[in-house]
C-alpha cells in the first residue's frame, strides 16, 4: 500500500467531498431524495475509503471501534429518545406534534431528529461491520484463492 501516491492524493481529495455530500444528503432529505440512511452509508464509505488507502489501523485511530459501537447504540437511542420525549410531553410515542406549537414546525423538528439518529447509527454500524470483517483473521494467501 505504501507506494500508491496517486491513490493517496486522489482519495485525500475525494474524502472531504464525500463527507460534505453525506452531510448534504442528511440534512436535505426533506427536499430531495436521501435522508439518514443514505447519508450514513455515504459517511461510512468515506471512512472505508480512508481505511482501504491508508490502512485500517490509521482509520481506527480516527474512530476507535469502541466509539463506533457506542455511536451505533446512540443512534437508536436518539431515535427512540425522540419518541420518549414526545411521550413525556403528552403526545403518543413519536408524536412529533408535541415538540412545538405549530404542528408543521414540530413535524420538521421531529423528522430532523430521528433522521439524525438514523444517520449516526447507520454510519457507525457500517464502519463497525467493515472493521469486523477486515480485521478478522489474516486474509488468505494469494495461492489459497
Amino acid at each position, binding site marked *: 500500500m505504501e507506494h500508491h501516491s496517486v491513490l493517496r492524493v486522489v482519495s485525500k481529495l475525494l474524502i472531504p467531498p464525500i463527507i460534505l455530500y453525506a452531510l448534504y444528503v442528511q440534512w436535505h432529505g426533506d427536499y430531495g431524495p436521501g435522508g439518514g440512511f443514505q447519508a450514513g452509508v455515504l459517511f461510512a464509505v468515506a471512512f472505508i475509503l480512508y481505511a482501504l488507502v491508508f490502512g485500517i489501523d490509521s482509520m481506527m485511530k480516527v474512530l476507535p471501534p469502541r466509539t463506533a459501537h457506542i455511536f451505533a447504540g446512540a443512534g437508536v437511542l436518539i431515535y427512540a429518545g425522540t419518541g420518549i420525549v414526545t411521550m413525556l410531553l403528552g403526545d403518543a410515542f413519536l408524536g412529533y406534534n408535541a415538540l412545538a406549537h405549530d404542528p408543521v414546525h414540530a413535524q420538521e423538528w421531529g423528522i430532523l431528529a430521528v433522521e439524525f439518529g438514523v444517520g449516526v*447509527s447507520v454510519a457507525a454500524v457500517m464502519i*463497525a461491520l467493515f472493521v469486523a470483517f477486515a480485521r478478522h483473521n489474516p486474509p*488468505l494467501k494469494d495461492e489459497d484463492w
Partner: protein
Amino acid sequence: MTASLIGIAVIDILLFTFLVITAIAIARLRNLFAVVMLAGVFSLLSAALLATLDAVDVAFTEAAVGAGISTVLLLGTLALTGREEKKPRHSPFLPLLVCLVTGAALIYGTLDMPSFGAANNPAQEHLAREYLERTPVETGVPNVVTAILASYRGFDTLGEVLVVFTAAIAVLLLLGASGKRPSAGRRGEE
C-alpha cells in the same frame, strides 16, 4: 398514454434483459470474485430500473447498499474464504422444481393483478392519495417518502434502525468486538 407506456416498456425490457443475463451469469459462473462483481452490476442495473419507476430514494439506497456496502462485505468475506466455487455434485432437479412451482404460483397470482401503471389501481387509491394530500399540509416536507418514512410510519423506521443495530451486534458476537486480531487459540473453541 399508450405511446409513453411503450416507451417505458422499451427501457424496461432493455434493463430487464441485462438483469436476466447478469443473474444467469451469476448462477453459472464459479469464480466467486466475478460473481460478486456481477452482483454489484445487478444492483446498479436494478437501481437504474427503480429510478425509471420513479423511486429515486430507493434507487439511491439500492446503489449505495447493493453496489457499495454489500460488495465491500462480500469481497471482505472472499478474502477470508477463497474465491473458487466447487462444482456442485447433487442434481439440480429438486431446486428447479421448487422454483418452477413457486414461479407458476406467482404468475397465477399476477393474472388478477391490476394493470401496471394505471392511475386508478387500488394501491394508488386509498393510502397513497391520503399521504400525498396530507403531507404538505401536516408536515410541510416536500419529499413525501421522507414524511412517511420519518413521521407517518416512523415506527417502522425505528425498527429498521434496530435491524441495523442487530446486524452489528450479531456480527460482533460472531467475529469479535475488540477490533484486535484474535489470538491464535481462542478459549473453548474446537
